[in-house]
């Protein structure tokens, strides 16, 4: 039931002339936005363009300074997300905004839980949560606590929460940023079902393939202003990207091509033999040379993150040996890894890594100082130069070192997280989903940066759910399946298809993460 395009039904959401300013930033300026029933509408724009802010003004998190919001014909002014929810707007915000200390079932149903005799009916709640999860193809114990699941599963739980109630508007702010192809397909299936039932869906993603696959219409924002609204079928990628970044695509392509393949032959930096941890990852061998980029490919739950955590000492290995620089290294925790020059940029930027209430500068300085040891203070000038350098290298916006990390857009926080580890000048840099939620322009820049780092002799272990990226950037690709290392491929001759085949291994993709 895609709307007949010649005569669309009246929009269910209409935002007119929305403006919103934060101290020092005009986040939205006179933005119009329409959302029709039975459509998937993509909201497009670079990091910091104002997408999440527009969503938050719709759902009552922020009150606009000017303009009006009309829902189903009536003007509304929600004063809290709860009110928007009651009015039929279900939202998955960017980042996982759930409570790790509660169970999965509570996270899905709290606020509309089944009751019995006045109290919460927990068995019914778990059953209902299990059903909702099954709808999006997730099979985990609803009674388990949320915090023990990886980020991707948490993101799926957030989606389950949004679709657990009947809604007329479903808002999904970067729901796919840490999902694998399988889960994305499952999500899209559900989105299509809901769309055909007449639900209006607002969708944000930096993956153009996904946007073109699922959306019917799109609105493009740039620097807080409306650039245009189009039917997806009417704009090609070039035009879209040009509209988003406000200049031509040429510069971007040049960056992508620069990532040519090399054959690093530096000395072996790290050598793991039979390293493993029961229940997390089977014993594996791995060698990483200085100046080499090793990619880790595998599905969610294949042991990607677990392998990285072993190398960083975040989890203790229970078998095998680790040799760094030809000397055996016993990791007693992240601290000994950092001392050995290993850095780990985690996928969980909210939980680990950044101090949201400190400025960009303080976050970077903290990291630098921690790596050097507190007894050897850095001169202020060096600090400022380094901060300046990475602000520029990663194109963090606003480029103001004193901006609080909390106030940055999702993508820009990710860049700060990356910078936080880069300033420590590690010898082995482990990047777990470093480009999550980052726009295409910045993504190319980050890939470029990784290649440059490698050329300067840093070893990089690169983990990403996005296979194209892994294949493009890696000198060597390690493939994982079911918590086992199953292959090691030469990155210069391997294609994405080959990796996909290995990962799938003929068997049905494993989605259950227990």
């Amino acid at each position, binding site marked *: 039931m895609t709307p007949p395009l010649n005569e669309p039904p009246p929009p269910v959401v209409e935002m007119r002339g929305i403006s919103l300013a934060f101290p020092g930033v005009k986040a939205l300026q006179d933005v119009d936005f329409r959302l029709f029933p039975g459509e998937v509408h993509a909201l497009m724009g670079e990091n910091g363009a104002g997408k999440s802010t527009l969503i938050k003004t719709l759902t009552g*998190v922020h009150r606009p300074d000017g303009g009006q919001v009309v829902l189903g014909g009536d003007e509304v002014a929600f004063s809290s*997300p709860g009110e928007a929810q009651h009015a039929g707007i279900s939202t998955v915000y960017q980042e996982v*905004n759930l*409570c*790790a*200390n509660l169970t999965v079932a509570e996270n899905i149903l*709290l606020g509309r839980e089944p009751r019995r005799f006045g109290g919460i009916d927990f068995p019914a709640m778990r059953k209902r949560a299990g059903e909702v999860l099954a709808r999006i193809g997730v099979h985990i114990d609803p009674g388990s606590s949320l915090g023990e699941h990886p980020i991707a599963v948490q993101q799926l739980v957030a989606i389950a929460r949004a679709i657990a109630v009947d809604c007329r508007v479903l808002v999904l702010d970067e729901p796919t940023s840490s999902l694998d192809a399988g889960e994305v397909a499952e999500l899209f299936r559900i989105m299509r079902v809901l769309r055909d039932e007449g639900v209006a869906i607002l969708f944000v993603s930096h993956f153009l393939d996904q946007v073109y696959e699922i959306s019917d219409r799109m609105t493009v924002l740039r620097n807080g202003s409306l650039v245009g609204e189009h039917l997806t079928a009417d704009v090609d990628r070039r035009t879209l990207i040009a509209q988003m970044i406000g200049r031509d695509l040429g510069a971007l392509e040049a960056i992508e091509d620069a990532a040519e393949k090399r054959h690093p032959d530096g000395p072996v930096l790290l050598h793991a033999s039979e390293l493993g941890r029961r229940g*997390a990852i089977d014993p594996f061998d791995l060698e990483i040379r200085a100046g080499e980029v090793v990619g880790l490919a595998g599905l969610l739950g294949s042991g990607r993150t677990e392998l990285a955590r072993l190398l960083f000492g975040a989890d203790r290995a229970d078998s095998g040996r680790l040799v760094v620089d030809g000397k055996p290294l016993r990791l007693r925790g992240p601290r000994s890894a950092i001392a050995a020059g290993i850095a780990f940029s985690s996928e969980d930027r909210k939980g680990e890594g950044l101090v949201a209430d400190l400025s960009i500068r303080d976050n970077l300085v903290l990291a630098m100082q921690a790596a050097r040891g507190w007894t050897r203070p850095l001169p202020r000038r060096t600090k400022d130069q380094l901060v300046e350098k990475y602000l520029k290298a990663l194109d963090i916006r606003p480029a103001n070192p004193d901006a609080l990390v909390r106030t940055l857009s999702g993508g820009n926080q990710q860049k700060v997280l990356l910078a936080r580890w880069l300033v420590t000048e590690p010898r082995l840099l482990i990047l777990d989903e470093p480009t999550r939620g980052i726009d295409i322009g910045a993504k190319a820049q980050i890939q470029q940066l990784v290649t440059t780092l490698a050329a300067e002799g840093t070893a990089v272990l690169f983990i990403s759910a996005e296979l194209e990226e892994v294949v493009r950037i890696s000198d060597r690709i390690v493939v994982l399946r079911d918590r086992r290392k199953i292959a090691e491929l030469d990155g210069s001759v391997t294609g994405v298809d080959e990796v996909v085949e290995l990962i799938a291994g003929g068997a049905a993709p494993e989605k259950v993460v227990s």
Partner: protein
Amino acid sequence: MTTLAPRVPSRFLPVLATVALFVLAFGVGSARYDGFASGQVIANLFIDNAFLIVLAAGMTFVILSGGIDLSVGSVVALSTMVTASGLQAGWPVPLVVVAVLLIGSTLGLLMGLVIHKFDIQPFIVTLAGMFLARGLCFVISVESVSIKDRTFRDVATAAIELPGGVTITYNVVIALLVVAAAMYVLHRTRFGRTVYAVGGSESSALLMGLPTTRVKVGVYVISGLCSSLAGLLFSLYMLSGYGLHAVGMELDAIAAVVIGGTLLAGGVGYVLGGLAGVLVLGTIQTLISFQGTLSSWWTKIVIGVLLLVFIAVQRTMVRR
């Protein structure tokens, strides 16, 4: 992310540790002193600490939500003062009870509203509440006021006989009812689960559309209500009202809750933990009084050491 680790124990570990500690302390007492291992000694633990059990239950709500309430000791004192002087003025007991409970919850409501509306740290606001309530006591009277009301004295001295010749007071019954009610609210109601959600992550709870305002203010109302009820129990226990009653009792309550395994950061803990914490503190006190030669300051020292140990354990658990 060790998903294979057994789940239930790790969640209950701190509470279990506290219970084990209680059993251990009690075992040591029983082995060393004759007459320690009697039902009445256990009953006395409850009788002597009924008010603290109620305070700890209220404090658990506040700490679970990520806050703190320093005013509870002073509110206890204020409640004893209102009770004693009200009875002295000839008010009927039911009126006194209602007045005391109303004053306590209103104070809690006011503190909660200030904390929420002006976004001030609970530490500061309840510190102010602590001085305010303490000051109000002395506005009523600077002297200790003894309670002579007949009904009140009868309730205070009434003994409930349990099988085995053990006796308890009404205070104990009330305290246990409060614990049961608190457990019901925290675990079975939306309000209670939202307390946990707010303590886990306030911003997430807000974005999940949960009524965070109601919860953030509500926990202080509950704590105020519990403090005034504890004040009534304390009046029954002491049979007097005095502005210097219950000095520092807020710290005992916080200590009990923390020793019971509730995280000061919020979001993790159980009412039963607080109860176990109170019993541990009570047992240590009993041990020292049985010992006879040690000064009661040893209680404080042991409590201090225990607190440090428990907080250290919590840190490592959170870091994991």
